[in-house]
């Protein structure tokens, strides 16, 4: 299949492989950054609950919009990195749950019981985020099988 190409010339797929490699590195960095932001976010809600910052939940809410873009970025990086299908599904689930998370507090007046799931959904978001941050570097590291399945 390589007939006609001088020895040493990079294969046509080299460029896309490099892109996938960079995307994988980016995915791991963003996954850990997202998890760290969730930790900060939990601390901020603690500050709100214990009234360190007063009754206003503004800091907690605003900070979510600061790092929220990392969730769709993870999906894009996951696709570019050609991660395994299961990892991509989990990353997409994280994005969906994060979107739901931002929506739930808006139901506080009409359906406070449903809005209360905001706290439970936070567990799911942290759990998936931690799972991705810990397991993906293992799966894509040296010696790991290639993705795409």
């Amino acid at each position, binding site marked *: 299949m390589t007939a006609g190409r001088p020895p040493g010339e990079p294969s046509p797929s080299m460029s896309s492989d490099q892109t996938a490699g960079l995307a994988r590195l980016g995915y791991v960095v963003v996954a850990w950054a997202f998890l760290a932001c969730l930790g900060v976010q939990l*601390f901020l809600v*603690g500050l709100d609950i*214990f009234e360190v910052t007063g009754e206003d939940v503004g800091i907690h809410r605003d900070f979510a919009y600061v790092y929220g873009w990392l969730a769709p970025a993870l999906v894009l990086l996951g696709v570019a990195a050609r991660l395994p299908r299961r990892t991509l599904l989990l990353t997409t689930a994280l994005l969906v749950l994060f979107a739901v998370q931002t929506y739930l*507090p808006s139901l*506080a007046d009409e359906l406070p019981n449903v809005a209360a*799931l905001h*706290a*439970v959904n936070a*567990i799911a978001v942290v*759990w998936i985020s931690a799972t991705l941050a810990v397991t993906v570097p293992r799966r894509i590291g040296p010696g790991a099988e290639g993705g795409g399945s």
Partner: protein
Amino acid sequence: MQSLRYLFVAVAILFVAGIAYQVFLAGMAVFGAGVWSSHIDFGYLVTIVPVLLILTAWLAKAGRRTVWLSVVTLVVAQVQTILPWFREDVPWISALHPVNAMVIFGLGIVLARRAWVLARSTSSAAAGSSAPAGQNA
């Protein structure tokens, strides 16, 4: 022994479910659908469960590491009940309460997984060792 290992699984799952319910109670209080006393009262109940985790892990011969992990879970769970006490003097320490809750949940998940793997591996080993015996008989 096998039944003790499944008991360990049951206690670990119960603990994880209890933490999730406890977080839901907190959400109910935050959004005005419940009261903080429910969260506080259930909190004292659920943070005792790690004592059962230690006991069942030890009885199930889950290994030193798992037993110690259960001890760590008990300590972290007790710290959780103490954190709100700092509300007046050092409120930022109290603010670690939700962060610590996630740590407890994570420890619960790790223990539940370990318990499940232990119970299943023992089941498989028992099935594996009984099959050749049956063939030889």
